[in-house]
């Protein structure tokens, strides 16, 4: 019966081409707009580290040293260098990494080329497996290179192309500020929708071009470019201390710490370790405020920090309302279309069609037009997403940021069916509810 109803629906569509086109365009516009904005929300709100988000935890402690804290909703979002160094040595997490962003000058191997400033992130080697970072050539440096530290670097695919003309740059060196770094890995195309490793400062930014061991912060006197805060004023004479000592003494909070805790037992062990660490620091005169340790999984942190801009959610909701309004406006068109052939409905009723059969027949027609409009809407949404990608900017290797994935295509189909139902249920009910004798009288 469904095929029969689809055939009747198609005949009806062809019988009223102008009206049908108007209805299809109305649904297409509604589905196109809503699919575009829901996709944008879906992309931003989706799991940024699939498969790992449950085990990666962001670490915070209340290390603020003054009674009044500017952080009203909890502990400071970043940690001090000295605390991070200690926690990294704890050995409790399966993996751990601390990082902060900076900018440095890259000197190309070809001396004729101009040096240029590039984004750099100082990390530990666990960073790469923790955040599923893909490699085109080579791989991460060894853990031993973190401690020394060795002058090794992982660079982006784009920087590799720029420095080494697209050839494999692993094993080659380039100068970063004042020293030479050996390339051990070149990243593959990598444009995470949300930078899970930096949700505090710039979650929607592009990944850095250069990654080097964290311990270079001291020797190279690397200044962080991200957010930083401190509660302590330098005491006289501290300005003359080496950079690393100033970092340690200064209580500057600028590093983000992530740990990988594969199970609840490990989470509990790490929380216990943090409690002990804070208690120990209190004995040393630090951490004067009430302890507030937080070990937060990725998705919870995304929600807490409102990584997805609220406007995105609002736009998705408004676009859904737009679809509903578009569908409601189509009720009149469907009603006119159906009532115009009331006499045929009367004949069908006389020949044995029940009220339900007539209802389903007309609803199938609405859903068919909904699906045709929805298909057109998906094409429109591809255009809408292309505009968003142009505004937002593609990834460094031309990877589109907002893409329509399979779940969103299914969502678009569901929206089309919903629009067809919203527009069609009342007209279909009206036409099936009229007594058949009255339809026939109109013949």
């Amino acid at each position, binding site marked *: 019966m469904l095929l029969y109803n689809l055939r009747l629906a198609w005949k009806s569509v062809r019988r009223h081409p102008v009206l049908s086109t108007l209805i299809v365009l109305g649904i297409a516009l509604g589905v196109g707009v809503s699919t575009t904005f829901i996709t944008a929300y879906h992309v931003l709100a989706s799991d940024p580290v699939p498969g790992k988000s449950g085990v990666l935890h962001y670490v915070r402690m209340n290390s603020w040293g003054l009674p009044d804290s500017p952080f009203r909703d909890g502990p400071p979002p970043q940690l001090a260098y000295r605390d991070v160094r200690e926690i990294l040595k704890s050995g409790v997490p399966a993996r751990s990494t601390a990082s902060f962003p900076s900018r440095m000058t890259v000197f190309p191997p070809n001396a004729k080329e101009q040096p240029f400033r590039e984004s750099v992130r100082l990390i530990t080697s666990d960073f790469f497996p923790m955040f599923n970072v893909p490699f085109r050539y080579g791989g991460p440096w060894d853990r031993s290179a973190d401690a020394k530290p060795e002058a090794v670097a992982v660079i982006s695919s784009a920087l590799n192309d720029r420095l080494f003309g697209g050839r494999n740059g692993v094993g080659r060196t380039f100068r970063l500020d004042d020293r030479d770094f050996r390339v051990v890995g070149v990243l593959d195309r990598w444009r995470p929708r949300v930078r899970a490793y930096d949700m505090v400062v710039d979650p929607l930014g592009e990944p850095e071009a250069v990654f080097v061991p964290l311990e270079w912060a001291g020797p190279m006197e690397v200044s962080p470019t991200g957010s930083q805060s401190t509660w302590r004023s330098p005491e006289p004479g501290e300005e003359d201390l080496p950079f690393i000592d100033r970092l340690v003494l200064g209580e500057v909070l600028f590093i983000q710490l992530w740990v990988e805790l594969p199970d609840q037992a490990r989470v509990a062990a790490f929380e216990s370790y943090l409690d002990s660490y804070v208690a120990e620091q209190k004995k040393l005169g630090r951490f004067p405020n009430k302890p507030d340790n937080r070990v937060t999984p990725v998705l919870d942190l995304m929600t807490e920090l409102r990584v997805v801009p609220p406007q995105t959610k609002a736009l998705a909701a408004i676009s859904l309302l737009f679809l509903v309004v578009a569908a409601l406006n189509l009720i009149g068109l469907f009603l006119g279309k159906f009532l115009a052939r009331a006499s045929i409905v009367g004949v069908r009723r*006389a*020949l*044995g069609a*029940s009220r339900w059969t007539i209802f389903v027949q007309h609803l199938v027609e609405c859903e068919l037009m909904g699906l045709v409009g929805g298909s057109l809407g998906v094409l429109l949404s591809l255009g809408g997403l292309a505009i968003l990608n142009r505004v937002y900017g593609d990834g460094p290797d031309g990877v589109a940021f907002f893409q329509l994935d399979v779940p969103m295509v299914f969502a678009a189909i569901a929206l089309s069916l919903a629009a067809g139902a919203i527009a069609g249920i009342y007209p279909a009910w009206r036409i099936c509810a009229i007594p058949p*004798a009255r339809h026939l009288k109109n013949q």
Partner: protein
Amino acid sequence: MLKMDNVTKIYRMGMVETRALRDFSLEVEEGEFVTITGPSGSGKTTFLNVSGLLDAFEQGHYWLDGMDVSRLSDREMSRVRNEKIGFIFQSFNLIPDLDVFDNVDVPLRYRRLGARERKERIERAVAQVGLSSRLRHLPSQLSGGQQQRVAIARVLAGDPKLILADEPTGNLDSGMAREIMDILEQVNESGTTIIMVTHNPEHAARAHRQLHIADGRMVDLERIAPFPLNRPESRQAAS
């Protein structure tokens, strides 16, 4: 076949009530050919609509083929219409964008018959009315008489027990009208009960029984021919 007992049908338009059928009682035997005459607005079409379960009635009882159909659900009424009743209308009521085959197919679709059985029934019924060569013609490509024959084929394909015909020859010239009446007589001879509304006295006289309705009541009953009957002789005698 059909029995109505004090059926009353009222149309309400705001405060105005119109009694289209008043204490209407009638019994039609299985295999009978009954014609109904009466002035416009007398209740003929209302009677057909009520008989065909196309319209509800307020009072009384109605039995069709031994079944009390006074208070059936919409689904049950639809099934009875589909399986037991065939309608023939003055304006043919073919669906304009379906060809002959698909028009005849409509009631069979609602009966959920298999494709092969539907095809056999359609081809047999269309052959019976002499339109086998027009299976893929649209109604607009047929004459009025041919359209009415398609409507009859649609009824025949469903093999109903009762045919309700509302002025089936009203839109046809006399030659075509005679052809249609001949087909209806043949169908009746095969055992199908026919109730036909007509304004044409000649056609009315071809039935076993002629009823006259005025002001929603049965005012006259005339037995034209004995029933059961040997039709050819009795018809000639009646005319």
